[in-house]
């Protein structure tokens, strides 16, 4: 069953545990710059927003990748980067509207959320339980929509004017 990671922003306390467990499980190191998730902290406003790939239904990253190195994992529905196929042109990074992909700071590799084969470490280790993996059944689709609507409505706003 395809899965998707959703976050309850009300629960997030901005401790960045997700960033570190992400880096730890994927890179065996502790480095937010190597994490597939980034908590945007608005310290003046007390808001924390974990940003990560939304595993779009029609992913632009996949569409722009000339090497056909980005594909959907049949098991989890996550968009994955075939690092062996990847040629490092960074078009996916430039095309993603939400900054969901990034370039590894030292290793030559595109990194992005891969849903940890369906069992994301951030879900397990977030002390506040702010994350949830939702199977894309009828209810899941609806919940995901709600989660993503926030993002897409932002895109609408963007077309309206500046930041």
């Amino acid at each position, binding site marked *: 069953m395809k899965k998707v990671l959703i976050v309850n922003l009300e629960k997030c306390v901005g401790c*960045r*545990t997700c960033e570190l467990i992400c880096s730890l499980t994927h890179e*065996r190191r502790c480095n937010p710059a190597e994490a597939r998730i980034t908590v945007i902290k608005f*310290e003046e406003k007390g808001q924390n927003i974990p940003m990560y790939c939304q595993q779009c239904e029609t992913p632009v990253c996949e569409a722009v990748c000339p090497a056909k190195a980005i594909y959907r994992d049949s098991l989890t529905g996550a968009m994955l980067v075939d690092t062996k196929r990847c040629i490092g042109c960074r078009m996916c990074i430039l095309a993603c509207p939400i900054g969901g992909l990034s370039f590894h700071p030292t290793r030559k590799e595109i990194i992005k959320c891969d849903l940890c084969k369906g069992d994301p470490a951030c879900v397990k280790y977030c*002390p506040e339980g702010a994350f949830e993996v939702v199977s894309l059944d009828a209810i899941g689709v609806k919940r995901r929509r709600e989660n993503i609507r926030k993002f897409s409505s932002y895109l609408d706003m963007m077309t309206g004017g500046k930041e």
Partner: protein
Amino acid sequence: MNGYSGKILFINLSENQISTIETSLYSREYLGGRGIGVKLLYDMVRPKQDPLGPENILVFMTGPLTGTFTPSSGRVDIVTTSPESNLLGGSNAGGFWGPELKWAGYDGVVIKGKAKNPVYIQIYNDEVNIKDAQKLWGKDVFETVKILRQGNEENQVACIGPAGENKSNLSGIAFNFRNYAARAGVGAVMGAKNLKAIAVRGTKGSDIYDTKALQEICLEIQNREKMMPLYKDAPSWHWKLFQSLEKDGKAFFGNYEPFLWEDRIKAVQNVKEFIQQNHLKPESCLTCPLRCWAHFSVRGEEGAPIIACQGTWPSIAYFMKLSDPYYIWRIYTLCQKLGLDVGGTSAVMALAADLYEMGVISFKDTKGVLFELGNGKAFAEAIEKLAKREDFGDILAEGIKKAVQKIGRRAERYAVHSKGGTELWLMEVRPFKGAALACAVTDSGSCNRATYAFPDFYYRSMQKQAKMVAKNIVGKEEAADPTTYDYKPKTVLFYENMHIFADSLGVCAIPFQPVGLELWSRSFSACTGIKLQLNDLMLTVERIRTLERLFNCREGLKREDDTLSERLFKEAIKEGPWKGEVLDREKFEAMKDEYYFLRGWDKDGRPTEKTLEKLGLK
């Protein structure tokens, strides 16, 4: 180097010189954080230097666990010679700055010298630049952080406010908008070096020896932290704290008045309502489940939203007897912006109000500022003047001990402070003999680094747990009774060690003891790959502690300096649960003897040759 970054950045601002020191030279014997900080201070600063002179150094050190996945590992330790006490000064902060420094490739930063003009330091991995800060000079903490993050949102900023620039001994170093290394006048040292800020951005990360083990250990630590009452009570913790201080009889009022404050219950109720009316959202430091911070936005206040640390509000309320929470919040915000230590500032305000009431100082001295307990507006005005060292604020900015010395007129009769001149740690100590001892013998630079979490503190509200903990530590349930002088040296020794250990590892002291030593040391091994026996680790802690003492001895510290203000030995509490409690000099000195003995020091509080030998400090 797993866990560590391997390098300590050394910056001499007088000579515009940037170099690095190998962490491995120190890590084996001093672990990291506070331990290495003390060692660097001891090695690099010649005896009896002016704390505000260019020869003094300011050390920012992370521990091996800082910035690792270990829960509550957002810490950075500050060590310097304190201008408040002219002894070793230390303070510690959480947040994200220390980890970012680690990820940039440095275990610490040592600042020496003094820049000709105001500067700030920008660190981006291997790029370290000393930049002009004349435009930042005079800006408050919030403005400074915002400016340094413009277009550089990932920057983590350590900076001082106007108080630090003006070398107030009550000034701290702010980390972003929230965390503070507030004690010991570390902000003044930074200001004296003409250093406005250190902005850090790091993308190197830190290497981990055994990631799988670390994950397992961390889940365990998380679970234990979640069992702490602090975790369970959040976010109502922020007003419940007032209640617990009241319940445990730790509260004090004004300048340690002998009577209870009649409005104290009302104040708590007011604060509770104030918090509930306004939006409060819990926040955490790096990897910490405890979310003991909170974002707090007051309705109708423009540009005011600030994250409020729970631990500081009571001192504002109790020192200044403020029952209007709006002013508590205003003064707290003011201190955060100006770069002031909330506790110290509140204490000095209470002292001034006392002196004013007792007629030691007058309207003339204060240049028209009214020091009146309960008058938040007036205190706010006074605090701004303190930060700017205007008028009477110039004297109060010196901190309690130096201020009363300057005032003269036997003002010291009214002063309450601990060793060296820093205010007591936000609580009444007369009934708490252990805390009193700790505040007297500590060489850590600030008494909160020595006293936190004693079982005595919750003896009244959770006697059963307190007794159990006491039994675990010293073997006797009776040790939990705050008023007994027995067993206290052992308790102090234990908690001092805990603090040193936490501060040196780079994790927060709050969950340190509840989680238990064993897990932390396992986490240390998982991160660094260094297999240390608990005994070895404890020997390291002893070494750090004794080196702190050696530093202060070198600065001229004597046994008689290990004490508290005379008032606390003379003036008994006249009301409330601790009615009649006062410190007994004789018993107090006996505790010191025992403490010195346990530490392997002589009667003068100097480490014996044997101890030095055992610790490799000869």
